[in-house]
């Protein structure tokens, strides 16, 4: 950040803080904009892949937002979608390679879904809607904020699914053996994608109950 810009606007001005916090609730990518549902269903059977997925999306989103924002004045409008896709695809392949090199087990679990970050509508959406018209620093915050909103929902879903589906948290058994002796069984349905969709639905319901601004007039 240049000094000149700092004088005009502090790094964490109210406006910039808003970029980080609104995607957590009011404009949450999953529960309000209903984007990125595909990966939210696919990688949330366990907490660990969900967290790695969230971090990967965060890196890709923040980095591509910054790159596109830096390039925004030079990108020819006629090929801007292609430019955005090239940037996203490059970032995703980099993340995928790094995961394969350092967290191989998790990368195997995530398998194709890391590659599918390329098609995650949230990222394209933020590039087109925000990074193309804003400076790098706000674009960076916007990317982090939206990835946090996405990750928050992913982690909540994964927590519930792992707890009720496998009886574990981070692969540690948390439901005591005594429960099973009494006839408690893990809910196998929680492991399957349909229950993730229903969980998303329940989260949206609860969120709308507490956030009246989200309720439409009609």
């Amino acid at each position, binding site marked *: 950040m240049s000094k000149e810009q700092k004088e005009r606007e502090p790094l964490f001005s109210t406006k910039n803080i808003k970029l980080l916090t609104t995607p957590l609730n009011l404009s949450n990518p999953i529960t309000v904009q209903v984007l990125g549902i595909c990966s939210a269903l696919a990688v949330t059977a366990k907490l660990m892949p969900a967290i790695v997925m969230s971090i990967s999306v965060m890196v890709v989103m923040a980095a591509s937002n910054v790159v596109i924002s830096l390039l925004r004045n030079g990108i020819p409008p006629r090929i801007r979608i292609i430019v955005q896709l090239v940037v996203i695809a490059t970032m995703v392949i980099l993340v995928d390679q790094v995961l394969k090199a*350092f967290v191989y087990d998790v990368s195997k679990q995530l398998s194709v879904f890391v590659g599918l970050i390329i098609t995650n509508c949230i990222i394209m959406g933020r590039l087109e809607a925000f990074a193309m018209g804003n400076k790098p620093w706000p674009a960076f915050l916007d990317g982090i904020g939206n990835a946090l909103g996405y990750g928050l929902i992913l982690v909540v879903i994964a927590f519930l699914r792992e707890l009720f589906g496998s009886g574990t948290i981070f692969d540690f058994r948390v439901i005591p053996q005594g429960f099973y002796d009494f006839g408690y069984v893990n809910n196998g349905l929680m492991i399957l994608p349909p229950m993730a969709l229903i969980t998303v639905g329940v989260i949206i319901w609860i969120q709308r109950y507490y956030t009246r601004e989200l309720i439409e007039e009609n």
Partner: protein
Amino acid sequence: MYTNGYIFRYAAIMVIIAAALLSLAAVLLKPFQERNMAIEKMGGILASAEVEGVETANTIELFNRFVVEELVVDKDGNAAPYKDGKMEDGPAFKIDMKKELYKKSKGEAFHLPIYLINKDGKTVYVLPLRGTGLWGPIWGNIALKEDFNTVVGVTFDHKGETPGLGAEITTAAFCDQFVGKTIFGDDGHFMSIMVVKGGAQKLPQNMQIHGVDAISGGTITSDGVNAMIKDVLSAYLPYIKKQRAQ
């Protein structure tokens, strides 16, 4: 305001930069990725011999401890042993099954690896497998007892079989069926192990010891496993027959 020339130049430069970045990353990260793949391969070999307590962190150590010898077997059944030094550096471990099986299909000379694992004082022979599933390659290991007949355990893995269907070949439920099965009939004929659609109980009584249940909805992957075991074991057959004759 943006001419066609500008657009073309822009696109070309962007693509070159992206390509350079990705190539650089691929080259720099390759040693780490290969290490991970080697660890996974070792893990599979140990798991097929039912060695317990194998985790990513201790795989290399356990591999060097449990594997007591490596053999490189040629098509006539002659074996070149490798005993001294680290097992992970052995010539057998470096063999690329895909290339060797391709040579075999061409009728050329080929070399296949065998790992000897010392488990509770008994030797277990682990033979790597490789074949084709529905969407891509499948591979695994089959561990045999000293009689070269009874199966100690198997592991399978795949590149991209359908989750929930073909991909079920990696599960314990599927692999555990192989334990205790035999690959030779009573008369000494090579029977392989059949992966039977509709269940092994469809086979005649005396054949059931050579059969396991296929996966519902995963027919082509199951057939692939069936063919893989048969093809690869028959490549080892000259060596196995020599050992059985002794």
